[in-house]
Every structure is written in structure tokens, then in C-alpha cells.
């Protein structure tokens, strides 16, 4: 490609720009030997162009995952296409210090890279150029925003009264879980604990909820669907797992509130492919919970025919 901007006499300008531009430029040949190493690379790596030139990239930087980088670079040689890597894939290609070592929050420089083909006079690609962009600020900003988002999400999903999930959020979750069950083979259950026949004072109840919250796995979600009940969604669990879990909960809370142990009814229902919506699942667990009144251990597992 000819470029009307460039005269041969202007080459020394171009060299100056190459040295001073604030992006990294590395030219590699087919063997991944470094052919060009600009000022940015020199400054950040501490390796001078004299020492970099001719060296193999992977020997000079053993922490660059060779197989991964080749996967990104080979199509550039073979197909003349540009490829890109973003910091979300891998925070950096070259491990450089953050540009702001004192006031910056990151210890290293986040990088995006573009790999472009360089056409030789014979129109073949014998060289590629790796362009390295410092995206530390953008990456930190995005990670920060993400963290805040998660935090806000948590705040709006937790009921301050019970410390458990709000019923609205919980209903959303079970709808989503049902859809997931329809797509996969993984079982999923809801356990409903009903203690409405007991008169438990508010303070004791709050303690009971805290105990419950502590015994949940990270993926389990509990809420108070109505006063006198606690519902727990247990993804990736079958009825057997959930029975074990529910019994344990009844025992744990029973240590604080003795009558809880003997008078709490438990219904368990697994998500079935035949459920059209989350309400049908809730009805099943509700029915099981009602039926639990007539069993010896006050626990009933929903069966499709019951």
C-alpha cells in the first residue's frame, strides 16, 4: 500500500513517532522472533530494542502462554485477518507495571491487543505487528462498576426484616431455575418449612433465620413467602439431598426453639418437566407441605401422581 503521507526523507520523523507513541508496537516474524520493539515496550519491560531484536518472544517472555498466543496469531499469518485480544480474556499479554505506580490502584497494566498482518512486497505475510494498548483505567472502571452493580443488586434483593431474600426476587429466581431445569438434566428442589401453628416471638424468629442463612450453600436461596413459612430453593439437589438438608435445619433451629423441631411441617418438591411455570412448582410444594401434617415425621415429598 502506498501512502501519500510518507516520503523517504521523512523516515526519521516516523522513527521518532514510533519511539514516542504511547502504545506498544512489536513486529514478529513467522518464528515469533522480535523484529521491532518500540520505545513503549523498551520503557515498560526494561529490555532495550538492541536486546530484544532477534530474540524469540516466548524465550524472552516465558510467562506468555505460547499455545494461546499462537492461536491468536496464526490466523493473522495464514488468513491475513486481524485478530484482537481484550483484557477480559487475559488481563495482559506482557506483564508490565501500572503506569501510575504510586496513586494507581492496579499493580499491573491491563492490556488490549490488536494483531495485524504486515504484507511484504510479494503480497505474502511474513510478519505481524502486535499493538499493545494500556487500558488499565477502563478496566478498573468497569470492574468497579460491576462490583457496585452486584452490591446494589444484593441490597435490593435482601429483605431487611428477615435477612433472607425478598419474595419478589425469590420468585424470579425460581422461574429462572425452572427454565434451567427444562434445559438440563440437573435436578432442583424447593423445600417449604411451615411453622405457622407455632407462636414464635419475633426475636427468636430472627435468630432462626440467621441460623438458616448460615447453613445454606452459596447457591441455595431462602425467603419468607408468608408469615409462618420459610421456603428454600436448592439447585442441583435431588429429594434425598433436600430431605437430609431439611431435617438438619429443623434440628438446628430446634436447638434454639424446641417446639420447632417437632411441630414444623416440611414439604419438598422437585422441579418437573411437566411444570409449565413456577406457580405449578409452588403449588406442588405447598400440597406436599399440607400433606406432611399426616405423616409420622411431618415431612412429605411431592410425587407427580399425588
Amino acid at each position, binding site marked *: 500500500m502506498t501512502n501519500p503521507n510518507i516520503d523517504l526523507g521523512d523516515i526519521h520523523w516516523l522513527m521518532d513517532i514510533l519511539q514516542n507513541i504511547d502504545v506498544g508496537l512489536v513486529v514478529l516474524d513467522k518464528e515469533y522472533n522480535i523484529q521491532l520493539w518500540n520505545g513503549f515496550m523498551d520503557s515498560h519491560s526494561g529490555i532495550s530494542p538492541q536486546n530484544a531484536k532477534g530474540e524469540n518472544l516466548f524465550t524472552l517472555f516465558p510467562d506468555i502462554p505460547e499455545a494461546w498466543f499462537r492461536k491468536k496469531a496464526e*490466523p493473522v499469518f495464514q*488468513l491475513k*485477518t*486481524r485478530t*484482537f*485480544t*481484550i483484557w477480559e480474556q487475559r488481563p495482559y499479554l506482557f506483564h508490565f507495571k501500572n503506569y501510575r505506580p504510586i496513586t494507581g490502584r492496579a499493580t499491573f497494566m491491563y492490556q488490549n491487543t490488536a494483531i495485524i498482518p504486515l504484507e511484504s512486497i510479494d503480497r505474502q505475510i511474513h510478519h505481524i505487528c502486535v499493538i499493545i494498548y494500556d487500558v488499565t483505567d477502563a478496566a478498573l472502571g468497569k470492574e468497579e462498576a460491576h462490583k457496585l452493580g452486584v452490591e446494589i443488586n444484593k441490597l435490593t434483593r435482601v429483605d431487611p426484616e428477615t435477612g433472607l431474600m425478598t419474595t419478589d426476587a425469590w420468585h424470579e429466581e425460581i422461574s429462572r431455575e425452572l427454565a434451567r431445569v427444562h434445559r438440563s438434566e440437573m435436578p432442583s428442589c424447593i423445600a417449604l418449612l411451615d411453622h405457622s401453628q407455632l407462636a414464635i416471638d419475633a426475636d427468636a424468629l430472627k435468630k432462626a433465620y440467621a441460623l438458616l442463612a448460615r447453613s445454606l450453600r452459596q447457591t441455595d436461596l431462602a425467603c419468607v413467602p408468608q408469615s409462618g413459612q420459610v421456603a428454600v430453593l436448592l439447585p442441583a439437589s435431588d429429594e434425598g439431598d433436600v430431605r437430609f438438608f431439611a431435617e438438619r435445619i429443623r434440628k438446628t433451629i430446634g436447638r434454639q426453639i424446641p417446639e420447632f423441631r417437632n411441630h414444623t411441617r416440611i414439604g419438598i418438591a422437585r422441579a418437573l418437566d411437566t411444570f409449565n411455570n413456577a406457580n405449578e412448582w409452588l403449588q406442588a410444594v405447598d400440597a406436599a407441605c399440607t400433606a406432611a401434617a399426616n405423616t409420622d415425621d411431618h415431612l412429605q415429598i411431592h410425587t407427580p401422581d399425588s
Partner: protein
Amino acid sequence: MTTPPIVTLSDDQRDCYQELTNVAMGQAADRLARLLDSYVVLPIPKVNLIEISDLRMAIEGAQEEDAVSAVCQGFIGSGIAGEALMLFNDTSFTDLARLTNYPGELTHQAQLEILMDVSSLLIGACIQGIGEQLEIHFNQGHPVVLGQHCNVNDILNVSNQKWRRTLAIEIHYTMEAVNVDCDLLLLFTEDSVLRLNHVIDFLLD
């Protein structure tokens, strides 16, 4: 500020865009076929003027929860600007992982890698292919992955463009023998369409 004239598209122009895209996507498919060693079925590209609501629906459809399923990448050259949007509708990442030789477990990270590899290739080849025929060198921005933490409304509203309808080129890729089904959408800004139409008219002349 003056409002730009309404974007229009004559039958001849549509035909021309279709043909240019056809050639470009053929090049893209050829690269993908070589990468994956599997034949890519080439459809006839759709060239339309679309409303912003259509785009919203297309993106929402591709945003299945938890799944990383869309990549967008901006491009610009000779004052013509647009974005390429790659939507993976019903794509089996297991199949893609096998074809692209990704070892090990198919983690979120591995999906991201595959998504980037495939979309880089398809978007790059398509944009370059169209650019070459129009004699425009398009610069490409860095790709952005639209994933679980990206809200459709954020993507479409934050951009301050008050566009209503614009040119969209839609390419639907499927592959023989494997479960890969994706859409590549090329969207141009309204003012770019006017410039593009001008270039096209020159070719049609």
C-alpha cells in the same frame, strides 16, 4: 444541528449491497471453514432498513442468561462508520470447542475465548471484504463482549444516537454437521448510509 435526510434504499442499491456482502461473507466463510475444517452454509444476505426496536429484539433474543453470546465491534473508514454485531443464537459451544481444539473444561473463560476467535474472524473478514470492494480501508475498534452483566437497554440507550432507522446487513451462518448457528449484523450510522449509497451509485453507474 440539521436533521439528516431520511435514509432510503432503492432496489438497485439493495441488490448491490447484497452482492458486495455475498462476496465478503464468502471470504469470511472460507476462513472459518479452514479454521474449523467444516463446510459453512452460505445464505443470501438480507439487506434492510431497520428500526431501533427490531435491533433491540435481536439483541434481547441473543441474551440468554448467564451465557456469553454476543460480540460487537466498531469500524470506521473514509467517514463511514458502523458496528458489527455477532449474535450466537443456538450455538453449541461444545461443538465449537471441539472444532477449535480447545482442551479441557468448557468454562466461562473458554467460551469467551472461542467467542472472540470466531467473531474476530467473521467480523474481520466481512468488513475487510466489503471495504476492499469499495476501496475503503476500515479500521476496527476493539471487540466488546456483551454478556451477563450487560443490559440491552444500556447498550442501546447510552449511545446518544437518536437514530430511528438505519441500514442493516444481516448474514445468517450455519454449519454442516455441527450445531453452529449465528447471525452477523452490520449496522451503519444514518449519515454513513448516505455516503455509502453515494459510493454504491458510483459502482452502479
